[in-house]
Structures are given as structure tokens and as C-alpha cells.
């Protein structure tokens, strides 16, 4: 029984680890999409953030500076998206796609020019990146059965960015539902003309949403390369931006449900990693491929209205023209 508990705890631990970048990116996508700007460029911003964080951490040895620079770079990318989608009323999907391809190219090109290691950054030392945060009383609580293990493995010992991501969710919900900015943001994604009539700038509101998305994706990127990993590897975002987008849709463009979707998708990935090659009773070999594809399949089913109904913000994808 304690073995099972231990395995379960490790899986939950893995869930939180996998879900951290998803949560940050999902909140980013939610803000952008609630303002009416489709954001498939979460992936690209994540990748750029990861690369810049690893590079700065390597040269300066300061993970905090690295996070700030990752945010800066990701915001810059978000500005391109805003410039194309808001200022020039370009196609938002095309812009996002361009950014994703640009990000895949530019990170590798610069990495090769800087480090000559086939697009990777050198492996970072422990001091250059974020380690796990040990909470107080871990030693004190350790002898207590159950509680001690739960506290040690599940509550304590995560990355600082993980705790930050968990704080971002209520903060996002507050911002979206309890502030003037949030009200206007929701309005601009539904009926931008009404916001415009009220004398509030549609473009500036949308820019702020897009920039906010840039900030969050930058942090998520830093988590990949200097939190969870120890350096940048080409394509290390590996579709996480898209899974986060799926989580946004799965959460019906709302912060808490999107967060829960991230946890669920993270759990599926952590569980499938744990069940790799293990025979389960009744089922046989664990269907890990199916489990990894499940987030995408469920999102398709949800969008098609087979499990609940997800209706996007009314003005999503439509550039605003006065």
C-alpha cells in the first residue's frame, strides 16, 4: 500500500512539473483570446523564452536576470504578433504560425552561432538555474506517516516558478473578473464596437492582453530551460504551447477550468511516462500513446459539442475596424 502511495505521489509530483509551463501558457492564451486575438504563437514565445533564459543564465549565472530577459524577449515576440494582428489587421493565425516558425529558426541559428553545439546551449550548472524550493518543517514532519511523505514530495520541493504559476491562476481570475481592466478585456473580445463607443481604445486593450501573454510565456519558457531542464535544446517546447491552447479551449476560455485542464493534461503525460512498458491488469500493456493523444482528442470532441459546449469569444479572430 505504501508503495502504491509512493508511486501515486511521484505521479502527482510529475503532474505538477509537467503542468507548470502549461498553466502559464494557458493563462497567456486565455488573456490574448479573451481580448479577441487568436494566439497560436504561444509555442513560439515559449521557445524564445526558453532559449533566452538559458543563454542569459549561462553568461551571467543569474537565474533571476535570466527570467527577466526571457520575459523581455517573449514580450518582443508578442509585440510582433500585436503589430501584425492589431495594428495591421493581419490574419492572426498566419501571424502566429509565422512566429512559431521564426522562433524555431532564430533560436537554433543564434544558438549555433553563439555556442557551436548543434543548436543547444551548454549544460547549465546548478547555481545558474532554479532548484527545488525546500519548505520549512520537511525534516520535522518527515516521521509522520502519510503526511510527511505528502508534504515532502507533493507540497514542498517544487520549482519557484511552479509556485508562481499556481499563484498566477487566482491572480488571472481576479484580473479578469474583478477589475475594470478585466471587464473591458472581456468586452473587447465580445463586442469591440461597444468598447470603442465607450471611449476606450480597442487597440490598446488588445495590445495589453497580448503583452501580458508575452510576459507569462516568457516565464514558462524560463521554466523549461532553467527550471525543469538544464539548458536549451532545439524544439524543446515540443508542442506544449499547443497543448496549452487546447487547455484554454477545454477550459472554455476561463481561468480556473483552463487550469484544471492543464492539470488533467499534465496528469495524463506524467502517468503515461510512469506506465511506459508496464502491463496493467485486464488491459495489458498500458496504452501510453493513446494517453498522450487524449488531450487533443478530448479537445476535438469538446469543440464539436460532443462533451459539453465551448463557445469562443464572439469577436475572436476578427480585426477591429472603426
Amino acid at each position, binding site marked *: 500500500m505504501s508503495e502504491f502511495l509512493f508511486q501515486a505521489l511521484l505521479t502527482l509530483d510529475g503532474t505538477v512539473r509537467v503542468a507548470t509551463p502549461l498553466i502559464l501558457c494557458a493563462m497567456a492564451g486565455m488573456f490574448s483570446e479573451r481580448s479577441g486575438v487568436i494566439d*497560436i504563437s504561444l509555442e513560439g514565445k515559449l521557445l524564445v523564452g526558453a532559449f533566452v533564459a538559458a543563454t542569459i543564465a549561462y553568461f551571467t549565472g543569474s537565474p533571476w536576470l535570466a527570467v527577466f530577459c526571457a520575459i523581455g524577449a517573449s514580450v518582443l515576440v508578442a509585440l510582433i504578433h500585436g503589430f501584425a494582428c492589431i495594428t495591421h489587421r493581419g*490574419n492572426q493565425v498566419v*501571424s502566429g504560425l509565422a*512566429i512559431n516558425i521564426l522562433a524555431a*529558426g532564430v533560436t*537554433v541559428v543564434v544558438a549555433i552561432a553563439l555556442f557551436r553545439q548543434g543548436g543547444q546551449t551548454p549544460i547549465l550548472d546548478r547555481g545558474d538555474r532554479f532548484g527545488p524550493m525546500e519548505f520549512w518543517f520537511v525534516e520535522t514532519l518527515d516521521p509522520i506517516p502519510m503526511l510527511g511523505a505528502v508534504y515532502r514530495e507533493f507540497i514542498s520541493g517544487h520549482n519557484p516558478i511552479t509556485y508562481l504559476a499556481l499563484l498566477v491562476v487566482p491572480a488571472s481570475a481576479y484580473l479578469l473578473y474583478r477589475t475594470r481592466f478585466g471587464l473591458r478585456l472581456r468586452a473587447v473580445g465580445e463586442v469591440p464596437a461597444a468598447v470603442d463607443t465607450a471611449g476606450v481604445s480597442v487597440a490598446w486593450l488588445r495590445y495589453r492582453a497580448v503583452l501580458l501573454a508575452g510576459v507569462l510565456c516568457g516565464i514558462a519558457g524560463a521554466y523549461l530551460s532553467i527550471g525543469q531542464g538544464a539548458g536549451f535544446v532545439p524544439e524543446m517546447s515540443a508542442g506544449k504551447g499547443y497543448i496549452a491552447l487546447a487547455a484554454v479551449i477545454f477550459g472554455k476560455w476561463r481561468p480556473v477550468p483552463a487550469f484544471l485542464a492543464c492539470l488533467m493534461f499534465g496528469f495524463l503525460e506524467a502517468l503515461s511516462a510512469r506506465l511506459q512498458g508496464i502491463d496493467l491488469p485486464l488491459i495489458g500493456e498500458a496504452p501510453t500513446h493513446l494517453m498522450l493523444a487524449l488531450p*487533443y482528442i478530448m479537445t*476535438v470532441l469538446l469543440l464539436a459539442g460532443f462533451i459539453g459546449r465551448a463557445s469562443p469569444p464572439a469577436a475572436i479572430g476578427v480585426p477591429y475596424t472603426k
Partner: protein
Amino acid sequence: MTAPPPLPKWADLFVLPVINLLVAFFICGLIILALGENPISALVVMVKGAFVYPGSLGYTLYYTTNFIFTALAVAIAFHAMMFNIGGEGQAALGGLGGGLVCLWLAPSLPAGIVLPLAILGAAAFGAAWGVVPGYLQARRGSHIVITTIMFNFIAASLMVWLLGGPLLQQGQQSPQTEAFEPAGQMPKMHDLLGGLGIETTSSPLNLSFVLALLVLVGFWVLIWRTRLGYEIRTVGHNPDAAHYAGINVPRTIIVAMAIAGGLAGLMSINELQGVQHRVILDFTAGYGFTGIAVALMGRNHPIGIFLASLLFGALYQGGSELDFEFQSITRDMVLLIQGMIILFSGALAYMFNPPLARFIARVAAKRLEARHV
């Protein structure tokens, strides 16, 4: 600011794309400069690598073939005002369809039967992967962009599972199927030309290129000379008007997406039957995404798509030369150029429209003035 005068059609079709392309290249040049290399010599290396070295043209046209198929898959959806990002998944499934035909029939039947069936199989499986998002968009109202993205990932998982399990070659570790028998292999162009007495350097260019050219012509006929093409374009311009005119809008969308998937699926013929001679993992290698750039540049017209495919084929082949000639820049530069092209000729396509239109109007006015004086 007053509204700019409308851009003349010739400028919209030729001048604007060229400006956008030049800006994209210019920015990439600046980046190469910042990396400490000479952009002009990089360009020279790429042009030589794409057209001049022996066999390079064959490689360029081989890449071109891939882009023609994936770009047409995007273009036909665009004509129905839909965004097909699912080229990757549709091509992967196409590879599965064509591959199954070859694995099953090539040992016992001649190439003259196997290859046409493989082409049909690739198109059918690709179409199946396109038709589901089409159906979900048309009948259930799910957004085609999201659904096709999700279908790319589902296809990738499916292929990993199939090639790592049920279809895995005996005694192999890397995920791939058994090799196709010769009857399941597309003839190479240098062999065919050699048979006619024309000696050319060997390259991966195969008969799929001819198939691609035929499909380009077929695409033109379909879109501008058939009833279905007319319906697709009408639905794309105005679904309400199409509905009132008696066109079955959902059916048209579904059919357009089926054709799109089939076209993307054909890309696998060039890669698998043409070169790899087995089904491998990730053979789509981003061609499906690049097809979007090609379709945007080619303005969804077969001639434009052919030219843009040639450009991207040259970029891919020329870009691989960069690895040998330079220290700091590699073929990954091509991804950057590609991203810039999508950004400027896609998302920012109309940034230069108003200034260009004003400029042309001013020149025209001056000329008119001069004539009157």
C-alpha cells in the same frame, strides 16, 4: 489619413509580393550580418547550391514537389475561406495509406498497378484525415484551425504507435516499416531520362514531380472550370449568398477539405515511394506548415504556387549548402527565412499596400498631368 486609392491588380499580384519577399530577405540578411557572416556570399552559396552544382536542380525540384502538394492542400481550403493547418497530419496519414498499399501489393503485383493504387491510397487516407475536421467545421461548428492543429498531433501519436508497434519492421529498433519491393518504388527521373538517352546526375527527383505538375493543372481546372470549383469559391466569398443561391454550403466545405487532405496525402508519394521506400516517422518534416507559406505567396493560384514552390525548393536545397560553407550559419537559416516570408507576405501582407497604392496613384497623376501640358 484619407483612405488610400485602390491598388491596381498588376501591382497587387506582382509588385506587392516581391516587395514583401525582398523585405523578408533583407531582414534575414541583417541577421546574417549580425552573426558575423556576409549575407551576399550566403545568397551566392544558396543560389549555387540550388541550381548550379551538378544534381542540385534535381534536389531543388524534388523539394518543390513536396511544396506543390502541401501548398495546394492549403490553397483549396483557402478558396473555401478555410484555414487548413492540418497538412502535416494529412500527409502523414497519406504516407500510411500509400505505404500499406505498397507493403501489401508490391510483392505480388507489377509497378504499373501498385503505384497508381498507392497514389489512390495516399489520397484516400489523407482525405479521410481532412474530411473529419471539415465535417466538424461544417456540421458541428468547431473551428477548423484548432481541429486541424489537434489532428496533426493525433496523427503524430498514431504514427508513433503504428510504426513502433504493429507495423514495425522485424528486428528493427528505429520506428519504420519493412522496405517496399521495387514495384512499390516511384521511378527516378535520372533513370527515366537515362532510358531516353539523356544523361543527368542522379538525384532524388522522381516521377512524383510529373504527378505534381498534372495535379497543378487539375487544380486550375477544378477551381475555375468546374461547377464544384465555382461552388467552393462562392462559399469562400460569401457563405450566405452561396446558401441562398442553392449551394449546399456544409457539403461544399466537407468536399473541399476532403480534396485538401487528399492533396496533402500525395506529398507522401514523393517522400516515401519516391525516396525512402518505406514508411518512416516524421517524414513530413514541416512541409505541411511550409505549404501555408507557399500558398500565401502563390496567392492560391497554381502558377503562383508553382513559382513559390520553386522558390522554397531552392531555399531548402540551397540552405543545406550553407552547412558546408559557413561556420556560424547553417540550414536552420532557412526556417528563419521561411518565418519572415510568412510574416511579411502573410500576416503583414497589406502593410505596404497603402504606401504603394499612394505612390502608384501619384505617379499616374503626374503622368496624366504631363500629358495634358
